[in-house]
């Protein structure tokens, strides 16, 4: 079980998202199989180099950073469908995120038995596989969106904002107070880690022997590498599906509704229906994000779903990256998560300075971080309203002027 053996397995797990990025970055002239092959080679080489060069302690930090970044990327992609493309002002992302997280947790855990049952309560526990949990999370968040959106989306957009704030608070309070549902104020524990058998002995029984041998050197401490591969795969799938839909007439209708509802109705589009669809699709994606979060954290409770982390940051991410651009949403998620965690370091380093200004300032460091993000948001809105990469000029795939 030397470090050297694990390097190969780790680099292969890291290579997955890099493979996708590299294959897309290669020129479109190349045939698809060449791009896939070259992308795989390039992605793996980069992953191997990173695994070899970066010390394993820092690597573990980077990997968990990327996992949280991926979860936020999923949320930002969901918000992008609602706000970026359709102009729906949802400031209750936390509600759909929480419902997704708790749903997947309840679907995949088992009912506590024996002594544990005295301490931990939950409405049900199906012990279903991870994938079932993720899908159920999407369905539950989508149903919530139908219930909220049905009556409110016909009204002016500020009503949706008010309604979504209310729903987010409501959902959080329900999970806080209803002990029978998901253990109330206490964390709901024991949420299973998908593919954990890769890092455990005796390993996954279904895996072919050569692959099993490849992953054998991984120890439970390396599980984050496995989860990063899963999380980035979810980001990739959501991204690809959304891009297809957005670049087709579906996305065109969304943008038309965003630009001018009356004019969209004038050309025969059922505005109420379009808005509801976009709201539900966005919420389903946020539900997926919730499931990803739950299985990463293993234990979740209502405090994880407050407006700051689960709504405000996602908004800043989308604004920073570029509203109306799916790549912008992903970029913004990683960039802002970097700024947010980086700001914590800076505040920490600045402790002596803060102490020199006022003795109680260091204890208030976290608030400085919030102030900083608020200033960043102001800066974006004033000087860079389209974000780092804004909406493209040609969104509909076949509307581009390729031939004359």
């Amino acid at each position, binding site marked *: 079980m030397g470090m050297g053996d694990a390097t190969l397995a780790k680099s292969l797990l890291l290579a997955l998202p890099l493979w996708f990025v590299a294959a897309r970055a290669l020129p479109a002239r190349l045939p698809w199989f060449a791009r896939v092959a070259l992308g795989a080679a390039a992605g793996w080489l980069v992953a191997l180099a990173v695994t070899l060069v970066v010390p394993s302690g820092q690597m573990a930090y980077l990997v968990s950073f990327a996992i949280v970044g991926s979860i936020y990327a999923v949320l930002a992609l969901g918000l992008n469908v609602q706000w970026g493309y359709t102009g729906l002002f949802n400031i209750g992302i936390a509600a759909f995120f929480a419902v997704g997280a708790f749903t997947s947790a309840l679907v995949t855990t088992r009912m506590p038995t024996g002594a544990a049952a005295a301490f931990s309560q939950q409405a049900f526990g199906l012990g279903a596989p991870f994938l079932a949990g993720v899908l159920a999370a999407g369905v539950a968040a989508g149903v919530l969106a139908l219930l909220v959106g049905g009556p409110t989306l016909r009204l002016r957009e500020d009503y949706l904002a008010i309604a979504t704030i209310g729903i987010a608070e409501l959902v959080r309070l329900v999970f806080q107070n209803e002990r029978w549902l998901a253990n109330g104020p206490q964390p709901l524990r024991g949420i299973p880690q998908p593919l954990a058998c890769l890092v455990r002995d005796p390993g996954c029984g279904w895996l072919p022997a050569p692959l099993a041998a490849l992953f054998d050197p991984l120890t439970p401490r390396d599980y984050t590498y496995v989860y990063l591969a899963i999380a980035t795969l979810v980001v990739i799938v959501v991204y690809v*599906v959304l891009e*297809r*839909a957005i*670049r*087709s*007439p*579906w996305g*065109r*209708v969304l*943008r*038309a509704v965003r*630009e*001018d509802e*009356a*004019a*969209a*109705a*004038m*050309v*025969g*589009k*059922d*505005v109420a229906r379009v808005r509801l*669809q976009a709201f539900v*699709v966005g919420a389903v994606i946020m539900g997926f994000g919730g499931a990803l979060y739950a299985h990463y954290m293993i234990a979740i409770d209502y405090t994880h779903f407050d407006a700051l982390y689960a709504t405000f940051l996602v908004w800043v991410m989308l604004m920073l990256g570029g509203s109306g651009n799916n790549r912008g949403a992903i970029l913004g998620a990683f960039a802002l998560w970097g700024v947010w965690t980086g700001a914590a370091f800076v505040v920490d380093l600045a402790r002596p300075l803060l102490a020199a200004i006022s003795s109680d300032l260091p204890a208030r460091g976290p608030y400085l971080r919030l102030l900083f993000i608020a200033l960043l948001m102001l800066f974006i809105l004033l000087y860079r309203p389209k974000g780092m990469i804004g*909406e493209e*000029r*040609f*969104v*509909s*795939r*076949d*509307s581009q*002027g390729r031939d004359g």
Partner: protein
Amino acid sequence: MEQTTGKLGEDRTGSAPAGAPPPALLRVEGLTKSFGGLQAVNHCSFDVRAGSITALIGPNGAGKTTVFSLISGFLRPDRGRVELDGEDLTGLGPHQVFRRGLCRTFQIPREHGSMTVLENLMLVPPEQLGERFWNPIVRPRAVRAQERAIRDKALEVLELLTLSHLRDEYAANLSGGQKKLLELARTLMADPRIVLLDEPAAGVNPSLMARIREKIVQLNAERGITFLLIEHDIPLVMGLCDPVIVLNQGTKLAEGPPSIVRGDPRVLEAYLGGQHGAVDG
């Protein structure tokens, strides 16, 4: 499907047999709408003949735009009825009215500003396969083939309305007159039976207006599209439209060929408040 892929210039079947009196394509009966205490439209009735270019004129505040909104489903009438080719449209939403072949434009153009001109047009055809979320993922080829057909049609419409050079421009960057043309172009993407134009000449320079006018005549003659238009430019109305319907205080005051209407004392009274003179703009 057929509508979206149909080529321009294909003949539209005229509904009137030769010799018979031309039937009413659009029939408005006893339309009434008030906003609070204001009676905007008051028992308004008129017919629009199939194949005609009919004008709806009247002094400011006569209720012309409100009538348009009532016909096209943007407003719900308090009382009265709207019929298109015998079918009751009353109470339908704007998108449902549109799908029955009635399009309107707005007094102030309402383009989708941060979409290109071409995409503004490609938006229009109804029931596109790719408008359903799953189709682009499950049936990408069919969606793409249809997109190409729609795109070709949009390019034809742009050519017809001499907007081809602007196809990749953001619609927001167009001049006021070009936006009016774009609105007209949008209605053509739908193969409409009747088009309601709200002040097509307002804010448009004379040479562009001549072009819009020429296109209206051409579309009417070649494709049999019926037009109902609100206009304040009296010479334009008199030269282009027959019949002319005059609206005053939310109800029909007079109707007839332009030469008759312009001499009607009631019309002069409504426009000029009692000072007699010729209405000549």
